[in-house]
Each structure stands twice: as C-alpha cells, then as structure tokens.
C-alpha cells in the first residue's frame, strides 16, 4: 500500500444538515471510503443519501462537519476536490435542447480540459456507453436509459478518481441494468473508486464490497457486504417438488410451511446445514426439483435494521 492509497477517496466527518432550521436530514454522519472500493449507500427514501451526495458535490450547503475527497477539503481546496469527483445524480439535470455531444464536451470544458483532449474523451465515453451514434441528437429525444448513460458519460469525461452515482439504474430495464453493472465493474477494476446509492439490494450485493446503511440521518451499519451477510441468523428457502405435494414434510429443527400444491418453505437458522434438510426430505421420499431463497437476503437484513433503528429513534 502506497501512502496515497492510505488517504481515503472520500472522508466524511460528523456531517450535519438541517433544512430551514427544522428538519435534521443528517445527524452527524462519519464515513471513510478507501481508494479502489466499490461502496454502496443504502437507505429508505428520505434517509439522507441524496443530501450526503449533494453536500459532497457542493449542491447542498452543509450545516457543519467536514468532507475531503482524496485528502482535499471541499471548502478550502474545492477546485482540487472537485477535479477528483464525478457525480451522476438521480434526476436528469442536463439541457433537453442541447445535443448529446455538446453536453459532454461542455462538461469537459467546465473542468478546464483543452479542446483536443475534451473532444477525444467525449468520443471515448460516448462510444463506451453506446451513445456515439446519438451524438448529434438533442437530449430530449433520447430514451430514459440513454439519458442515464449520457449522465454517466458526462460525469466521466474529466476522468475522475471517485465516481458517485445516485440510484443510477432506477427505472431502467433489466438488460440495460446488467450492461451498466458490467461497465461500472470495468471502470472500478481500472481504478476508479465508486460509491452508489440504490434501492436495489441485489445491485449492492452483486457490485459492492463495502456498504453503509443510512436511516433517518444516521449510519446504522458500516461494514463489508460479506460480514453483513454473515450476520444473517435465518434464511428461508423455497423448495419445489416433483409432481404434487402429497403431504407437508416434518423436518426436525426447522419450521416448514406450505406455499402451494407444488412447493413449501423451510427456515434454516445459522449453523444448520442444508444437507440435513435434504437428508430428511430424501428419507420422507420427497423429490426436490429446484430451490431458491424466499427473499433477497440483504433485503431482509436491511428491513430488520431500519425497523430496529426506527424503534430506537422512537424510544
């Protein structure tokens, strides 16, 4: 690890934001994201994710606290901090009347890129995001997915070291979502630190290494996805049987419930093995053709954490 690697890509210290001296959107959150990380910020609507991103990108004025991007303070060294940062907001925020190429070229200009370099990098990212053929099209004529990709190309044109995406795949179809995931994995592998907020927990589980769960302006959990999943105490599996389910199996140590005439669900607690379940099912002559998780594992944990936090706040 070089000394540069030990400087967090993003460091947030005791960040607070109170809107109109009434609503406390952020209650002193602290967070470090290390270079090269693929980091997820999860939280329900109104948790404070977008406010945090707004403050980092200077679109929202913080009430107190400090933010550094690769060691550069956003207040005292804003120019250097912003050069390291690319932001893809949740909502479309480009001129609908301008052409795709102009939007990306202008953004390069705002970062002071010489024209020749700006033109080359605009071409590179429009091609990577499959928008090169649409470069002369006014932005309003693009589909929703293309508009999202345009915002990613725009955020990358000055080649930032830290890319923050606020719900980048909201409202895009599955195919496009998967291709966006591949693209983000590629640029992360090439060295860009990525932070994303998402409602799709599958997205966080699939892409990210570390995670912060935010709720009601506080960080409820800040850990790796792996250790978060290890905290799961219980999982529910759905088993589909061959033919019709003649009777509901009785499995020692497991709660079993019928779903329909072809399937049933089984609770498996931490420490229990699936081999034991299969052994008992085989003994009862029940043939299984497929099995799956009842719900996304992270989703269950996320809901549990948010509910626990709500109870804590209320008490």
């Amino acid at each position: 690890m070089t000394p540069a690697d030990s400087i967090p890509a993003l460091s947030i210290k005791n960040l607070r934001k109170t809107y109109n001296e009434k609503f406390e959107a952020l209650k002193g959150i602290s967070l470090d994201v290390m270079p090269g990380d693929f980091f997820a910020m999860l939280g329900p609507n109104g948790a404070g994710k977008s406010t945090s991103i707004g403050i980092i990108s200077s679109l929202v004025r913080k009430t107190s606290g400090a933010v550094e991007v690769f060691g550069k303070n956003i207040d005292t060294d804003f120019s250097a901090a912003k050069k390291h940062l690319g932001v893809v907001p949740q909502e479309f925020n480009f001129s609908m009347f301008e052409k795709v190429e102009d939007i990306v070229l202008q953004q390069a200009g705002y970062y002071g890129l010489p024209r020749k370099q700006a033109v080359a990098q605009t071409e590179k990212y429009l091609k990577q995001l499959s928008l090169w053929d649409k470069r002369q099209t006014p932005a309003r004529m693009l589909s929703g997915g293309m508009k999202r990709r345009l915002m990613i190309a725009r955020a990358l044109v000055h080649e930032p070291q830290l890319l923050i995406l606020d719900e980048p795949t909201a409202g895009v179809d599955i195919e496009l979502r998967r291709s966006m995931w591949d693209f983000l994995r590629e640029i992360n592998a090439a060295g860009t630190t990525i932070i994303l907020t998402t409602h799709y927990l599958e997205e966080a589980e699939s892409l990210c290494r570390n995670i912060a769960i935010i709720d009601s302006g506080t960080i409820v959990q800040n850990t790796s996805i792996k250790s978060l999943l290890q905290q799961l105490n219980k999982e529910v599996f759905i088993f589909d049987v061959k033919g019709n389910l003649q009777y509901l199996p009785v499995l020692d140590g497991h709660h079993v419930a019928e779903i329909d005439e072809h399937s049933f669900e089984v609770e498996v607690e931490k420490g229990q093995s699936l081999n034991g379940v299969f052994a008992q099912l085989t003994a009862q002559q029940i043939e299984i053709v497929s099995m799956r998780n009842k719900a996304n594992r992270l989703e269950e944990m996320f809901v549990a954490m948010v509910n626990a936090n709500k109870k804590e706040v209320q008490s």
Partner: protein
Amino acid sequence: MTASEQWIAFLTILRKEIKRFTRIWIQTLLPPAITMILYFVIFGKLIGGRIGDMGGFSYIEFVAPGLIMMAVITNAYANVSSSFFSAKFQRSIEELLVSPTPNYIILLGYVMGGVARGVAVGLIVTAMSLFFTSLHIHHWFTTLFIVFMTSVLFSLAGFINAIYANTFDDVSIIPTFVLTPLTYFGGVFYSINLLPEFWQQVSVLNPILHMVNAFRYGMLGISDLHIGMALVGLTILVVILFVIALHLLKTGKRLRA
C-alpha cells in the same frame, strides 16, 4: 484551477451561450430587426417627417441611436435572465456548480454571453437603420464604451433577476414593469429639453437616460447631460451589480439547497 483552465471554462460558457441564442435566432435575432424596421418606418419616415429637426438633426437621425440602445439593453438583459433561469429550471446549472469552475468565471461567462447578444442585435439594428438614414460616429470611444458597459450592466441585472426568479413569470416582470418604462422615458424618442423643468429633474434620476444620451453623443455629438457623469456612473453601477451577483453565487442563493 489554473489560469488557462479557467480561460477554457470561460470560453466554454461563452460558446454555449452564443450557440444558444444563434440556435434560436427566430426568437432572439429576428424580432428586434423587425421591430426596429417598424420603428424606423413609423417614427422615422411617417411621423418623423412631420416632427422636424431635434437637436439639429432630422428626427430619424436623432431617434436611431436611442433605438439601437433600446435593442442592446433589452437583449442583453433577456439573454442572461432567460438562459440562466432556464438552466436553473432544467437543473443543468448543476453541471457548472459541481465543476471546479470559480464563481466569477461562471458570472463572466454568462455576462459576456449577454454582451454578445446585445452587441449582435445592436449591429443588426444598426444595419437596418442604414436603409433609412446615414449614420456616422462622432466619438468612437464613447460609443463603444457605452455599448459595452450598458450591455454588461443589463446582463448583470438579468443574471440577478434569474437567481431570484422562481417561475418564468418572475423573469418577465422586471422587463415589462421596470425596463420598458425606463427605456421609453429614457430619451429614446425625445430630448428631455422638451419636458417641463420638474420632469426634466425626475428624468435625470433614470440611469437609462444617461446611457442613451451618452450613446447619442458618441454618434451625433449632441448631449442633454454631462457625458463624464454617465461614463463614471455606468462604471460604478457595473461594479455594484457585479459584486452583488458574485455574492449571490457565492452564498448559493436559490441555487444550492
């Protein structure tokens, strides 16, 4: 940001602004040309012939500098107020706010965009006037200084208007209820010497009168007022509005949550 990077950012904003008003030339460049032709035909040829001389010049010669200034003022103002408010409304202003571009470069870029349109329309109107009368320049420095500084001033005013505006209605209130009356009473169509003493004193408080008068002096060499006062006053107003606009940008008034 280095000086050369800031220069690139400035040119980017200016290029974007020029591209914008030339792209929609039917809304921005054509209407003042048509309006001014109508003014020249009606006030210059039809009515002007009956009015006779004013300040030693034919009425059409007298009114031409005022009409040019009127076009410069309204277009410089309209360009910045509509462009900046539209960027705010569509949230594309965030492209600039998240970038390292310093606030004064953002301001200068938009203001120079307004100046570009003000001067472009001024040139178009001047070209139109040549179909009706001959123009000559009495004092080049005064003429160019007044055109440039007036368009800077009203671009700054348009910028401040756009920052405070919440709706498109808010963008049109100042031009309709403030700018147009001040321009029409700003000596575009008459010499204030024609007014009673009291109204002459009131008119002197109108800054547009000083700009129109100084511009007319630059072209025709006649003046109702002190030219030096107009040049200094205009410069002071530009400095004051620049400081106010920069302060609003710095504090993020109605731009940052």
